[in-house]
């Protein structure tokens, strides 16, 4: 890839007060979003939240009713973007090479440049030995990789990925994220929608929570936690038999078999709590310490499970 490396702090795309309605239904209700070079921005939201509408508008498939989109890269916007639809958006009856060629030509890449970029992209996706194979004969994971490869052949600076790992086995998923990491290294900004919370936690630099056509909050996982449910860990102590009372800061649950409390600093507070339990001679059987999860935070912000 020849794309010049950009700095993380470079705002590459800015969406301000974007709105879109289908009749009386407001799909996007004042979206504000920034994408930075070299980051993966995870877009999380329940079904019908407006994720697909937003991606469609950002990819040029549809126009916002109002609002502005600013791209900091000079030149034709379409040349700087790539879109990976959720479906395997490939021509099944063309070979891998032919698919890459036709999508390259749509971005005005021809001749020697096309051949070179095709070679690089095949290598990037690990599909060199499948170049002459019909797409319909590829495995699901390979098709997913080619689905992404066709979107980055023209070296976009901004990549929109709609559920790129749906139905993919863990090995292929790992490979796909490895491919995406190489794009991040050269400064590509990636907007990713996913239903895999662990993927969002592990892979995204920042997360935007969208619901009812609005971005509820955007930031790193820690920032979002702090602003919503806090970063406090939860200590759970289970007893071998019901107890009558527990020392503070623990709270006894209803069945009296378990006590819980928040721990701000585990190395400082945990020994103190355990000492109090020991001093009270409580029949402690098990203990666990839980960090707050994206699932909790998502539930807190939207009031819904992600898959609703």
């Amino acid at each position, binding site marked *: 890839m020849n794309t010049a490396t950009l700095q993380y702090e470079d705002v590459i795309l800015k969406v301000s007060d974007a709105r879109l309605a289908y009749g009386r239904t407001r799909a996007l209700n004042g979206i504000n979003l920034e994408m930075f070079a070299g980051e993966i921005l995870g877009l999380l939201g329940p079904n019908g939240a407006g994720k697909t509408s937003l991606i469609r508008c950002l990819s040029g*498939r549809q126009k916002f009713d109002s609002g502005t989109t600013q791209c900091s890269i000079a030149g034709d916007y*379409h040349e700087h973007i790539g879109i990976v639809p959720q479906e395997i958006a*490939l021509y099944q009856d063309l070979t891998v090479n032919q698919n890459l060629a036709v999508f390259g030509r749509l971005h005005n890449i021809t001749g020697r440049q096309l051949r070179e970029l095709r070679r690089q992209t095949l290598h990037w996706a690990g599909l060199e030995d499948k170049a002459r194979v019909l797409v319909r004969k590829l495995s699901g994971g390979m098709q997913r990789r080619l689905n992404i490869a066709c979107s980055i052949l023209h070296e976009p600076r901004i990549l929109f990925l709609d559920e790129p790992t749906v139905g993919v086995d863990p090995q292929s998923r790992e490979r796909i994220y490895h491919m995406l990491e190489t794009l991040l290294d050269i400064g590509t900004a990636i907007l990713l929608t996913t239903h895999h919370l662990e993927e969002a936690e592990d892979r995204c630099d920042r997360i935007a929570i969208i619901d009812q056509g609005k971005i509820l909050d955007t930031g790193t996982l820690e920032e979002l936690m702090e602003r919503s449910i806090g970063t406090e860990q939860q200590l759970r102590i289970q007893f071998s038999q019901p107890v009558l009372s527990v020392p503070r800061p623990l709270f006894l649950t209803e069945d009296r078999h378990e006590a819980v409390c928040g721990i701000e600093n585990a190395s400082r507070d945990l020994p103190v709590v355990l000492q109090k339990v020991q001093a009270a001679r409580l029949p402690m059987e098990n203990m666990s310490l839980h960090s707050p999860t994206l699932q909790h935070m998502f539930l807190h912000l939207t009031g819904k499970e992600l898959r609703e």
Partner: protein
Amino acid sequence: MIGTVVKISLLRLWNTKSELALIFIVPVLFFSIFAWIFSRGVGRKPGQIRVSIICDDMKQPGKLLAQSLSEREELRTVTGIGSTAEGWPIGRLSKTVISQHGAEVVVYIPPTFTEHTRNGGKPEVQILHEGTNPISAQIVEAALAQTMITQQVDLLAAITNPQLDQTDSGSRQDFRQSSVQFASGTIAAAGSVQPATASSGLPNGQPLPTFQFEKENIFASNKHNPKIAMYAAGIAVMFLLFSASGAGASLLEEKEAGTLDRLLSSHLTLTDLLIGKWLYMAGLGFVQITTMFVWGQLVFDVDLWGHLPGYFAMAGATTCASASFALLLATLCRSRQELNGVALVLVLGMSALGGSMIPRYIMSESMQQMGRFTFNGWAIDGFKKIFWYDLPLSAIQTEICVLLFITVLFGTLANMLIRRWSLN
């Protein structure tokens, strides 16, 4: 268990209303179309043969025959009763009235008709036909024979009284009595009407005339295998529509597979996409139809090489119109399944009415007019003018204009309808 399987199938059918409708609509529709065709028509009006009567015999018997013929129910005179003129011999005149005025058969009463009758010769009437409708000439021939029998009294009066040549209708009744014997004339073999007895009612005792009919296919005489060209045109247009509809489905496939999103994220617009698909379909259709005609030339002696300019014009216009038709269908429908159903009904319906399946000449007049609302009808008419009538390019201007108008209209509508795709 088996009941559950049946129930699943029924529920699926019930939930797919378009499929449900097609199951019942298609058979009823096609039964109706073919029932109308073979019962000869909507409105029960019997089909008529379109004739043009050219009478060069200025004497009373010729005029009387022409007049009587024009009044027959099974015939419809499209140009009235005319005559040849300088520079317009019967051959040229017949070709013109058939190819440009819609006549199927020309009945020619030559100037010597009365003279031959009176001199005891064989009065000859020519039946000049275009040949695509094999039954039209026979119907006219039968009508002529019948006319001569039913109008025998008046005819005999006119033949035996040359004085009537100077008057309009004369005192035909005076001769009725003496000419009843003419009624014994029967239709003989080989298209002639001959009296059954030697005894005639003619005053000078000369034998009754034997009317001779000469049939001539004025267009097919120099062609090797002319009818195949017409079949080729009919079949080609129908399959052109089917293959164009199939190609139009690729547009819906783009939408369903998500490649549309990818395509539109580039510089490509929906209009570009439509133009690209249209060019492909029109090009493919042209190659398809040309392959068929080349095969026809090589194997069945269809004279393609002799009609290349007209062929290119008609094939080009037809494929352009069929491509726009396919795009319109594709943009009207929401899924490939729906498109397949709609295309099946429309293509078969248009082909049945337009003459691709059944020649339009066997349809009633009103159904033949309905065929003009199908572009099979226009395309087949154009090919007919080129291959059958050997007409120049200028003669197919109307067909070309109609097909190009369809191309533009359907293409524009498709371009408007595809905008809806931005919303879903």
